[in-house]
């Protein structure tokens, strides 16, 4: 991609424009470098760059401790994801049901659980249930909360996916004599599922990030173990930074997979995918459910380069 063709400007810059860009490039490089120097000096002044603060991170026992934390994070996220997919499918089917009370119940559950902050749900499943004599482990409390919340979000993804399918598909299925469930299972869901794959993978990223909330209920996941490590060696800043990097690596990879699936999907089907999860956790709201159904994937977040590939 040529930088001068940059999106908004449309066409190549002239000699004057190019010179201006060169000057601005120089100036901004100086500014960025200056900021970095200030930050590094500040860290150095406070002894945060001293080797003994970073050294623990090179010990295998510390790495093992942290990576086992990451493993706990992944395990909780994977368990919750599988359960949330099942719950989401159930809620979506209920919400599309032809019996009004079932529909209302599903809508109420979805709206309620999506409208409540996850951390409140986690507090409830951990501290709350305990008060009523239901003793749950931190792992289970976290998984239950994540399942309920993401089940509600995925329920909306599934519903949007099913509804995005042309009505003609259902009608044709009925015309050849299939009943409601047959039409759903044989015609509608297989097609809708393919469109939803990228949104589901994006939701996985969100879920994995949210697993760090297990921290508050002493679940031994990555962040919690990072905290123990930081307190033990007195190098919180370094350990938290390292934990952040681990999260970034994992989530960035998942995000790339989502993007790749989305592009492949569009190229193959020429169809739009559902973008509920495309912009991550921040779009999991009632308003968005309406907005997302019609959104083309390229509209949100897809860069011009990607569109070129997909187009």
């Amino acid at each position, binding site marked *: 991609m040529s930088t001068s063709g940059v999106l908004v400007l*449309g066409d190549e810059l002239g000699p004057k424009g190019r010179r201006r860009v060169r000057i601005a490039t120089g100036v901004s490089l100086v500014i960025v470098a200056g900021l970095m120097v200030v930050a590094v000096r500040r860290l150095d002044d406070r002894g945060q760059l001293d080797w003994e603060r970073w050294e623990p991170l090179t010990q295998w026992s510390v790495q093992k401790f942290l990576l086992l934390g990451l493993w706990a994070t992944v395990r909780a996220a994977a368990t919750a994801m599988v359960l949330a997919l099942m719950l989401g499918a159930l809620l979506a089917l209920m919400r599309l049901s032809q019996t009004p009370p079932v529909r209302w119940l599903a809508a109420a559950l979805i709206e309620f659980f999506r409208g409540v902050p996850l951390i409140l749900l986690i507090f409830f499943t951990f501290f709350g249930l305990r008060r009523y004599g239901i003793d749950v482990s931190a792992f289970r409390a976290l998984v239950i909360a994540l399942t309920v919340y993401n089940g509600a979000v995925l329920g909306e993804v599934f519903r949007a996916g099913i509804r995005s399918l042309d009505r003609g598909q259902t009608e044709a299925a009925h015309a050849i004599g299939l009943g409601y469930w047959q039409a759903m299972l044989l015609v509608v869901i297989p097609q809708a599922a393919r469109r939803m794959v990228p949104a589901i993978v994006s939701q996985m990223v969100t879920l994995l990030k949210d697993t760090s909330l297990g921290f508050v209920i002493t679940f031994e996941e990555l962040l919690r173990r990072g905290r123990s490590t930081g307190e033990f060696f007195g190098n919180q800043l370094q350990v*938290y930074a390292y934990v952040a990097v681990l999260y970034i690596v994992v989530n960035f990879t998942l995000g790339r997979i989502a993007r790749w699936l989305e592009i492949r999907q569009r190229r193959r089907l020429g169809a739009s995918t559902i973008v509920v999860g495309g912009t991550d956790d921040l*779009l999991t709201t009632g308003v968005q459910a*309406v907005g997302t159904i019609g959104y083309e994937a390229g509209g949100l977040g897809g860069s011009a380069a990607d569109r070129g590939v997909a187009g």
Partner: protein
Amino acid sequence: MDVVLDNLDVFWRGMRTTASLTVLSFAMAMVIGVVVAACRVSPIPPLRAAGALYVEAVRNTPLTVLMILFFFGLTKVGIRYGTFTTAVIVLGGYTGAFVGEMVRSGVNAVSLGQGEAARAIGLTFPQSLRLVILPQALRTVVAPLGGLFVALVKNSSIASLIAVKDLTYLTNQLGNDTARYIPVFLGAAVAYLAITIPAGIAIVWLDRRVAIRR
């Protein structure tokens, strides 16, 4: 139920803190987001790289980690703010990355002819961005930005981790003190919905009002 009715003032205090957290950090996020988006669509390579790096790093880090990193980590380099200020900075910075992506997608949605026309009449890049492109771009992303706002109301609950006395913090405490978790929890949920639902309605209204009809 009377646990909730007897402690309405607790809920009210929590709601006020949550609301001000949300509004302040959203304002900050808008500023950061527009700047980041401007960097990412600018023809200047270092700015584009910096913008991309910011967005990818922030979006892929859990908000919890950012909150803790800033709260416990930055004190190590002698930067120290109150918990509320820290929460606003972290929430604003986090949400700003998402706003940036949305505004950028809005910029991409503005037809190419607009940018070309702006250049044809002699506007410089910053001028055309400020006067022509961004006003149109922002109008197309009102609904997604509204979604962000509503999500931010919920995300602000992460501030309770660093003891900001928001709705989540206070209601969890109330649940602990009274041992009546279910009514308190339901009360908290209603309080959150009392913020998010009107916000959602306002967004739909605003979106209709400013929508560009083509």
